[in-house]
């Protein structure tokens, strides 16, 4: 399975990447929404998951999600917001734009894996 991590923090991309790689994902990274769009356009294999920060330069996460949802060829991608934005109205906006799940920073690896499990995106090889 393949995941795209979209976050302007290299440290956060590394943390999320390690969690996902530990359960069997191949990980691709992007530092903002625009770069993430370019990564998706370059991909020749399907992507199952995108973990998306909200506040980023160039293109923020909400705009990225909106752009992804406009493209029928990317309809199968599950979008999970991973962000410091914790207010209810932000969560509602993200879900309305097309996010499937919402994880608030700071989070634990267990919390992220629980979300993946709920989404049916936890590779079965982990035994979870």
């Amino acid at each position: 399975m393949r995941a795209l991590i979209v976050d302007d923090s290299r440290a956060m991309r590394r943390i999320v990447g390690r969690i996902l790689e530990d359960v069997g994902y191949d990980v691709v990274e992007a530092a903002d929404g625009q770069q993430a769009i370019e990564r998706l356009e370059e991909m020749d294999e399907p992507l199952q998951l995108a973990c998306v920060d909200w506040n980023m330069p160039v293109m923020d996460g909400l705009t990225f999600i909106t752009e992804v949802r406009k493209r029928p060829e990317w309809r199968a991608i599950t979008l999970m917001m991973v962000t410091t934005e914790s207010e209810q109205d932000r969560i509602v906006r993200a879900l309305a734009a097309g996010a499937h799940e919402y994880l608030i920073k700071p989070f634990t690896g267990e919390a992220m894996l629980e979300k993946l499990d709920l989404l049916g995106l936890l590779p079965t090889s982990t035994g979870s």
Partner: protein
Amino acid sequence: MTISSAPDEALVLAAIEQVWGSMLFASAAPWPADRPAEFETGLQAQIELRGDWNGRLVLTCDSVVAGQIAGAMLGLGPEEQLDQPDVHDAVGEVLNVVGGSVKGALPGTSALGLPGVREVTAVPARDESFVVSWGDAPVYVQIVPDAA
């Protein structure tokens, strides 16, 4: 601006304690007022809050402490070293998460900026900041409202 929408020391300290505990696997406590808290070269991260209250949160620590914070965030061993851009990035992200927690707890705060990090050669004045502990080292925190 309303007083109730301004972040205070207790709120920011609570956010730091939460982030230290969950991201860095460390505890934070207020630094004793009579204990020296000096260092010569350090890192300063800041992030803006916008809304009913406008201003920024500023976090300043020794360069070595910044490296330790970055290493803890990434789960590195004590012998592993990070490049300076990675240390800046990690400390900025720590403050970003602290800022997000503060923003979420404040009524009428609508936006959080992107963190900025720079090197500094002086610590903030003690009467313009409060100090929390990172292990046995001080970390300065400032709540700076925009100038009127």
